């Protein structure tokens, strides 16, 4: 395979990082490298990490800088080919058969009886779409095995129509929350990156970029508190999305007249979304939120 060192005007990971920043996504070195390699090698990008670290956002940002439509396939347990690939419109086929006149030849496997699902759409229009296969760890092993054929050849077999093959390799991003281990065969077909929680400095930048109303001091206070929360044994540790929500919620309360540490505490529900976690944290709150009276 010939190497394309320039993809969509990007000739290095640094280029991609800059473009992603323009699309409101602050990428670290690792994700910029993996993203660039994925585009250049024509391989799917597999992003793993805790919920809320920005895996789906990364896919959206990549679609944004490539100027393509993002097609999202949300995985769930029991997802199968008819939800991911295509389905025939059976009622319409049945109606057409009933309405067909004697002696008329009828092709019930025409395009207009075919309902495209996300993977087929991405295969048919690879130059204008980015396919996001979200939370692949939620699907079962059967679906993962089924994905392998798609991800290695970018082809789909429809028994009634034969094999459809993508003219060029579509851009595919897979995400996983690691609730189960993915099959090695899937991992090896992808360029891989594990997204960890961002460094405090970067997280503060993300908050301020996402929400212009949040003051720098608020962003830093939130990042500091979130860092402490992530060290606690919580059922649902807060992700970056929660950090942004918390900063916005605290800002909104403060603007509505609540005094500062109190606004911060009252909006904790934007970051912590589990009753047991609340109970666990209650005695530690004065440590996590500075200035809060015990």
């Amino acid at each position, binding site marked *: 395979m010939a190497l394309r060192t320039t993809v969509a005007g990007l000739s290095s990971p640094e280029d991609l990082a800059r473009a992603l920043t323009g699309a409101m996504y602050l990428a670290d070195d690792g994700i910029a490298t993996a993203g660039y390699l994925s585009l250049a090698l024509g391989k799917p990008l*597999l992003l793993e990490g805790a919920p809320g670290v920005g895996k789906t956002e990364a896919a959206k940002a990549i679609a944004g800088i490539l100027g393509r439509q993002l097609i999202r396939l949300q995985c769930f347990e029991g997802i199968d080919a008819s939800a991911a690939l295509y389905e025939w419109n059976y009622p319409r086929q049945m109606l057409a058969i009933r309405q067909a006149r004697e002696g008329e030849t009828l092709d*019930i496997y025409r395009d207009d009886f075919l309902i495209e699902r996300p993977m087929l759409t991405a295969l048919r229009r690879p130059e204008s779409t980015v396919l996001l296969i979200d939370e692949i760890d939620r699907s079962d092993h059967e679906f993962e095995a089924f994905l392998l054929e798609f991800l290695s050849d970018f082809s789909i077999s429809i028994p009634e129509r034969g094999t459809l093959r993508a003219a060029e390799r579509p851009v595919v991003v897979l995400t996983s929350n690691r609730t189960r281990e993915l099959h*090695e065969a899937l991992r090896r077909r992808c360029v891989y990156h594990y997204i960890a929680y961002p460094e405090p400095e970067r997280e503060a930048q993300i908050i301020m970029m996402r929400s212009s109303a949040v003051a720098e001091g608020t962003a830093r206070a939130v990042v500091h508190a979130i860092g402490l929360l992530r060290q606690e044994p919580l059922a649902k540790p807060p992700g970056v999305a929660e950090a942004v929500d918390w900063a916005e919620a605290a800002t909104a309360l403060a603007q509505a007249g609540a005094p500062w540490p109190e606004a911060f505490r009252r909006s904790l529900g934007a970051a912590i979304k589990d009753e047991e976690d609340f109970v666990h944290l209650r005695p530690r709150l004065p440590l996590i939120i500075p200035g809060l009276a015990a």
Partner: protein
Amino acid sequence: MIAALPAAARLLVAFPTLLRGHGFSVAPEQTTSFLMAVELLGPRSIEHVRKAAVATLAPQPEQRILFDALFDLHFLGAIAEPGDEDFAPDEEMAVQEDAGSREILVGEEVNETGQAATGAEALSVRALQPADETEVLRRFARVLPTALPRRRGYRHRGARRGQSVDLARSLRAAIRHDGEVMSLKKLRRVTRPRPILLLIDISGSMKQRSDANLALAHAVVQAAPRAEIFTFGTRLTRVTRALRLRRREQALSEAAGLVADWDGGTRIGDALQAFLAVPRFASYARGAVVVVLSDGLERGDPAALVSAVARLAARAHRIDWLTPLAADPGYRPETEALRLIAPALASLSNGGSTARICRHILLLGGSAAA
């Protein structure tokens, strides 16, 4: 083809081979991607080579420290094998995950480890004696897949009777009769065996049962469609991957090598809290049959154990606590911790022998398969 490679490329190609030797699975196509990635990135420094390696050879996050150590060893010639002075046991993590290899010890915290172990620990590593209960385990493994409790799955299958209409099959049948619908084909939900989660106490007071329980865990991993095994004493160790090795002796010695807290004290509450604090581990318990093999002699704070079991019970299908102490017919849970958690348990019964534990697990699905 390898012979024609320049010396620099030979060094690159040799790295995946080194990784395979340490339990990483690297496919030949990943080696090719690695070479292309290095070319794409410049490479201007050794860090570019490292980035290319991480992106294309895809080490799991918990393998990352070993991966970096091997990378340094290979490309920088650094001596990565940690000496005792570099990695004192106290720096090991409370939650250990089987990295698939033990040749280079890794004693570093990774992102999802939960709390660090504290307090005095009696750490010891020892070899396992193979248990002499092979026949019991063989029969157990044969029956287990059908004996586990089942739940409704999300997939459908054609059936004579069912809840919904199978349009695809109905249409194909109708075509044979010129579009006349003679009979509607039906679909029904398939059922799937529930996952099984085994939590094995390997503390000093369970010494008599530890080896046999691990051998039993090996049979469970081999037979059940979805199984997860953790050991705990003063810390928590995931041994599932080691137990996936088919040969029992090899699997058990691999697993035994991962566990660092043999025959130490027991802090069940802390171990279960650590289990629940890693969202990935906690998700293993969702809808699962949880079997705890422990005498429940808790040295830590009972409050931690009680809250952990309550949280576990909220996730799991059922929790069965099997203790060797219940071999005595007059046994009553006497420790405060066990008394407090008893209401959250589906059963608290005899875990005194492999045969009894096997029988109990086989009866969980309500069949008389045992």
